[in-house]
């Protein structure tokens, strides 16, 4: 029953520190204090940077997932698409080496491929009307398989080590992936919360029929959401492939889909559409990264890490006490 729903939404600068929206900030704070009190190294600036860094590539994908989920769909293919686009980028880069624009060229190509693949997935869902879960389960399987095929089961290795600058470089002490993450997050925030398109995503996800009555091109909106997911995957693939200067056809991106969806859901995005926010997703990813970091910092036994992680995630959600099936 939604009787006890809060009555007015916090707007603009009005901040209710204990409102649902800020629970995740509290969760982050509590986890941090806990970790820091056991292992002071947790609070080192470099470690905090590392946490953001480790959030970056999943974070960007989770932002894409948020668009899709707000529009009432789901994308399971992001993990294997990361490997696929990453592989394509490395291949393109190696082909273009010597032309002088091999790095931007390969990236542009990869981003194009990512958007195109997302768009195609979107068409599968909207035009051919395959349920999103199955459509993207199918493409997940297909992208992984094509990647394995292209790499013969091995890895794609870039010939130019200077490519690692993107994934490993820093700008004024801040890792470039973190900067990319923030910039991407802000752009996504503007798009989702401050443009008619973003508004339409919510409408489509919450009530497809109303959206249709309001003369919104539902199929177009949803297809574009998938294209955005493809774009996010491509940006993330740039980071991932440049970080290690290579892409493994078998393991890169494994399980990203679950992490991305989990981050979005922790951040308040509903699996049934119409609810969600970029800030929530970003905080959700950070919560997941903090947990990962903390488990290592506190030297939790590898066998029990899953228990700790599970308990923390459930507790974090419990603190929000929200329900949408």
């Amino acid at each position, binding site marked *: 029953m939604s009787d006890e729903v809060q009555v007015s939404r916090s707007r603009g600068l009005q901040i209710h520190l204990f409102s649902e929206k800020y629970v995740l900030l509290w969760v982050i704070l509590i986890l941090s204090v806990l970790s820091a009190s056991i*292992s002071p*190294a*947790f609070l*080192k600036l*470099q*470690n905090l940077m*590392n946490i953001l*860094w*480790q959030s970056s590539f999943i974070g960007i994908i989770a932002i894409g997932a948020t668009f899709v989920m707000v529009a009432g769909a789901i994308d399971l293919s992001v993990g294997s698409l990361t490997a696929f686009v990453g592989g394509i980028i490395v291949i393109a880069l190696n082909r273009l080496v010597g032309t002088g624009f091999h790095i931007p060229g390969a990236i542009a190509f990869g981003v194009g491929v990512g958007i195109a693949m997302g768009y195609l997935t979107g068409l599968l869902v909207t035009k051919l009307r395959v349920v999103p879960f199955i459509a993207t389960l199918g493409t997940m399987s297909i992208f992984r398989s094509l990647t*394995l095929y292209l*790499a*013969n*089961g*091995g*890895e794609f*290795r870039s010939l130019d080590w200077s490519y690692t600058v993107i994934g*490993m470089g820093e700008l004024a002490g801040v890792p470039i992936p973190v900067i990319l993450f923030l910039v991407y997050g802000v752009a996504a925030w503007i798009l989702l919360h401050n443009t008619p398109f973003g508004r339409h995503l919510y409408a489509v996800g919450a009530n497809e029929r109303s959206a249709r009555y309001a003369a919104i091109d539902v199929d177009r909106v949803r297809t574009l959401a998938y294209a955005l997911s493809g774009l996010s995957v491509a940006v993330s693939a740039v980071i*991932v492939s440049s*970080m*290690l200067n*290579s892409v*493994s*056809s*078998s*393991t*890169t991106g*494994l399980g990203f889909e679950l992490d991305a969806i989990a981050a979005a859901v922790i951040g308040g995005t509903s699996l049934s559409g119409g609810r969600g926010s970029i800030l929530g997703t970003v905080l959700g990813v950070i919560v997941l990264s903090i947990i*990962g*970091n903390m488990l*290592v*910092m506190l*030297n939790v036994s*590898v*066998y029990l*890490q899953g228990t700790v992680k599970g308990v923390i995630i459930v507790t974090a959600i419990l603190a929000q006490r929200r329900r949408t099936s």
Partner: protein
Amino acid sequence: QEKTYHIGVAVPAADHGWTGGVIWWAQKAIREWQERDPNLTFTLVTAHNPSEQVAQVKTLMTKGIDALVLLPHESGPLTPIAEEARKKGIFVVCVDRGLLRETAYDVYLAGDNPGLGRMAGEQMAKLLGGKGKIVVIEGLPTQINTERVEGFKEIISQYPDIEILAIQTGYWQRDKSFATMQTLLQKFDRIDAVWAGDDDALLGALQAIKLAKRQDIKFIFGAGGMKEVVKMIMDGDPMVPITITYPPSMIASSISVAVKAIKNEPLFPEFYQNSIPSKIILACEVVNRENAARYYFPDSVY
């Protein structure tokens, strides 16, 4: 008319670099054997979990195979089905991970996981001169990983001056190992050396160390014998002095063993027994700068 043979090869799906290598080597051996002998056909299958592998072996049996080369997902789960296959007269070569009962296979060909761990421990002690603080980046929580880590700890425990600061998992994956190492570097101000249970993990961890510009870490080594790592050793990378082999090519050898066995040929002409040895344990070898060239296969995927 010559007799034709069908050989089934069942291995786990590639969930990290080493298993990727296994598939590559299996395909290489299959290709080479088929070129040599058109009467041989092969079916290669990969499984994500033990029950899927059991199902695949069943299907292979129905399809009709003369020999089965099986790299079991886990030893226990695959024992009953291997036994069943053998009862039907299929020649079973069990690779890498043992089966529970000797009645389940004709030939067992494997690397030595506890031995690998022990060897890593000995090398670590030697390279450190018996003194220092180390961290271990272990692999996926599985039997193999446990055996390696236990072997390693067994040796290190004999050196009171070597302290294991932490054992954390990198899941045998590069990006996960990178993140784990990054965090450990923050936690410990002084680390003398790192052992990664796998060469993929080593590359990830090494990247993290380089990035943090840590001077205190003298070296890091892994296990497996991945070509990039062998190349680094060959080129004299100061951070990576050695690695320990655990070759994915063992699958290729096993396929050859199976072929020899069903054709009733000895292992090699100079081998005076007609039948294949029932157990072959591959020794772990230390790859160092001197011998690295012999372990380098540039066109392999691993």
